[in-house]
């Protein structure tokens, strides 16, 4: 921290951004010194990633109308038009998903497409790409970057054989090595790490934090985005909390504790009118679904050893940060991803990995992946809504020849579809329209209608409002609540938006690191949920 005089390394002033009128960032101001480590925390959708995209001048930002405000690097205003520009000014980023070649070595990955070359005669004729790789120089540069990071990473190891931590180091080393291989003025000055520790074991995370301190002492500033608050407190100089597209707090990390941060993250004014006012006495109703020792292998949403009881007639919410495994629970139970453990529905144990058995028992699922799982995009609304009910419960079929032939009953299908089109206000030209042509909100309504058509006893609804506009949002949530009240169907709703869960659910379970961390009534203080989301025990108040 040697740069007391002069302009800060990075300064952002009055940054704002809206996506077609929908404001996602407003009036962001902060600055960053050389060698400073800034911890950036916030719930999903708080605007962290949008802010980083602006910093890097990603295409997505330009295509949606640019941003407001200005960015200064060492006092000079910059406006990056592409990530390559950002790179040239010494800003690097390590993304959450690895961008590595599995069958190449660490060295090759670190220097991917920036390999030092040896001149060959052929290149004069056929262009630069026929120069040969300078392996020695490659190893030297890669080793230099690894050394700078101060981690025990073998440059000759294949990525596919590495532990996860080493993959992460490879990614960081790639950013560090850029000073040696590109025309940067003075090497890497600012490194953005997006959730680097999420996939690491404790030891690996520890050595990563150590590496971060090493980098910082060399004058490289770091923006560290993480949900692990203790790590943030441990390693950062400054902590910045974002919520709803604003900076809520910027404080030095000394003396801050996890509870404070959690409060800042989720503690918002809650609109009481929207809240679910019902008090559901779940202890009086019997357990309808009980999940024991469930594991689910869903990429990015791994579930480990989950135990959960769902009571008859309730609306249970499942919340948690992205990637912690909340989505894995319904997908695993419904058999869409490989799963193990035990599920008992209405006193009967059901086999896993068989969607059919769950559907037969009366459990339905509205997937978060509408286009991939939820819909037949190239078929009509009629098919989309009635297909599952037809296949599982033999509805909408006419029988001929003693039941030998079961013929599609077009009239019944049309009637059923029409019913839901009216009930859920699905906007379409006709019931024969292809699902692909509908808007996101209407597609979601079709997915709901599909689930309602099987008259389920228990309904899993995953991210029901993701990517749809506000009007459709409230319609969908209302429909769920109404359905629960009118037909007594138990609903398990999974959502990233805590407020949404609190407005609909009776109880909310928070998933962290693949496990159910705790369950609280929806009326509990939001800060408690915030703490649970980041893996902190709630002290009894």
């Amino acid at each position, binding site marked *: 921290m040697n740069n007391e005089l002069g302009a800060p390394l990075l300064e952002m002033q009055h940054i704002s951004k809206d996506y077609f009128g929908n404001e996602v960032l407003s009036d962001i101001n902060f600055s960053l010194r050389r060698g400073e480590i800034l911890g950036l925390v916030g719930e999903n959708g708080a605007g962290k990633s949008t802010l980083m995209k602006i910093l890097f001048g990603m295409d997505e930002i330009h295509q949606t109308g640019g941003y407001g405000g200005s960015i200064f690097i060492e006092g000079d205003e910059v406006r990056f038009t592409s990530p*390559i520009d950002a790179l040239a000014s010494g800003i690097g980023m390590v993304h959450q998903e690895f*961008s*590595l*070649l*599995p*069958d*190449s070595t660490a060295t*090759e990955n670190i220097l*991917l*497409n*920036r*390999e030092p*070359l040896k001149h*060959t005669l*052929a290149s004069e004729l056929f262009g*630069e*790409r*026929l*120069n*040969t*790789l300078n392996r020695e120089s490659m190893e030297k540069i890669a080793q230099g970057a690894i050394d700078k990071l101060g981690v025990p990473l073998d440059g000759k190891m294949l990525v596919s054989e590495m532990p996860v931590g080493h993959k992460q180091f490879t990614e960081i080393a790639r950013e560090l090595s850029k000073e040696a291989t590109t025309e940067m003025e003075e090497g890497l000055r600012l490194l953005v790490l997006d959730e680097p520790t999420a996939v690491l074991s404790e030891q690996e995370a520890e050595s990563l934090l150590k590496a971060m301190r090493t980098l910082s002492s060399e004058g490289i500033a770091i923006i560290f985005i993480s949900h692990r608050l203790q790590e943030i407190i441990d390693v950062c100089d400054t902590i910045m909390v974002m919520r709803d597209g604003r900076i809520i707090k910027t404080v030095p990390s000394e003396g801050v504790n996890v509870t404070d941060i959690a409060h800042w993250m989720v503690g918002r004014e809650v609109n009481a009118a929207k809240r679910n006012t019902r008090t559901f006495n779940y202890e009086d109703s019997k357990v309808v679904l009980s999940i024991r*020792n469930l*594991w*689910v*292998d869903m*990429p990015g949403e*791994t579930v*480990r*050893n989950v135990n959960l009881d769902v009571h008859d007639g309730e609306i249970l919410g499942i919340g948690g940060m992205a990637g912690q495994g909340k989505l894995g629970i319904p997908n695993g139970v419904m058999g869409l991803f*490989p799963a*193990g453990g035990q599920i008992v529905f209405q006193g009967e144990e059901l086999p896993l990995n068989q969607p059919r058995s769950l559907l037969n028992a009366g459990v339905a699922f509205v997937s978060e992946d509408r286009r991939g799982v939820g819909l037949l995009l190239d078929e009509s609304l009629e098919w989309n809504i009635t297909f599952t009910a037809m296949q599982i419960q033999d509805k909408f079929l006419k029988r001929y020849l003693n039941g030998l032939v079961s013929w599609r009953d077009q009239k019944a299908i049309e009637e059923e579809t029409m019913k839901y089109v009216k009930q859920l206000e699905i906007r379409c030209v006709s019931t024969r329209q292809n699902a692909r042509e509908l808007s996101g909100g209407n597609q979601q309504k079709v997915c709901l209608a599909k689930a309602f058509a099987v008259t389920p006893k228990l309904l899993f609804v995953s991210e029901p409002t993701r990517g749809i506009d506000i009007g459709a949002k409230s319609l969908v949530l209302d429909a769920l609540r109404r359905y629960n009240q009118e037909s007594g169907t138990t609903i398990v709703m999974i959502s990233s938006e805590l407020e949404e869960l609190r407005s609909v659910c009776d109880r909310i379970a928070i998933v962290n690191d693949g496990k159910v961390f705790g369950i609280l009534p929806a009326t509990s203080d939001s800060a408690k949920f915030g703490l649970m989301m980041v893996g902190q025990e709630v002290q009894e108040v």
Partner: protein
Amino acid sequence: MRELSTKQKILRFMANNTVPLLFVVIIAFGVPLSGYSPTYLAGEVISRISRNTFLIVSLLIPILAGMGLNFGMTLGAMAGQIGLIFTTDWGIVGIPGILLAMIVSTPLSILLGWWCGKILNMAKGREMVTSYIIGFFMNGIYQLVVLYGMGPLIKIISPNLLLPRGYGIRNTVNLIGIRKSLDNFLMIRIGGVPIPVGTFLVIALLSVFILWFKKTKLGQDMRAVGQDMEVARAAGIRVEYTRIMSIIISTVLAGYGMIIYLHNIGTLNTYNSHMQIGMFSVAALLVGGATVASAKIRNVFLGVVLFHLMFIVSPMAGKRLIGQAQLGEYFRVFVSYGVITTSLVLYEVRKKRERGMSGLALAQDQEVTS
């Protein structure tokens, strides 16, 4: 990583080399049955190595770039044949004739390869079946050019080449002028087995080129694209362009390979020579232990030897065994296709199995912890 026991090592070796091992078994039975003398077999195998290796090597580059087996190498073969038709027509003989045919074929191959690469970029994920159909499609265009275009539109000097009706090339073009001229250049004999050192030198040069090419930036980029297109793209590698380059190189080499192949045979079957070339080259490469995702020079040589030994002995073995040479001929055709089918199936099955592994790990993990 645990150390594997010897038994496990052997099992793994066998699992990874099923196809070559199977061939060794077939040959172990077939060679004694056929009753051919070792000298004869050695001569035949050497002649076929010199004839076919170049063609098979042309398949390596697209595999490197992750585009699978390039059945579109037929396009290169067509370009090579057109080169030969021209040089024969001009009356250029000997090694100059071969070289000139190669020079003439090069621009054609580049053009065809570029086009083929473009199409394959539009059909990502099903490159193989598309390249296979491209071969058929281009065969139609080839016929249009050679059977109708040559004579009236494209000047052919020598009337001997043309069909009596005045246009179109005859069914067979006699390549007597260049026949074996490269093979006979520096021919030596060891124990009665003729060895065409000239051709072998060319093949050695090509092998060195391939090894060198893998060390170039372009080669490295192809490896990257082959492993993960998206990662390569994120790193700034021009994915589409790189893929097209790999097909162009493959097509050009296939053209040269076809010229060497036909120079050894001595006659060009104008409308048929190229048809099965892709299939046989692919089969030979796979027999050598290559897969859809990885192939090396040594697979080429092992493949040529094993595949052709089987090819040479099976008619005779069939005759001795059942009294019908025809049987052996059908057998080898069946084996060629069977090998390709097996390799394709194994490739897809392995790809799927790898995806299933992480779930098992998770289950084990939980068993340990709980």
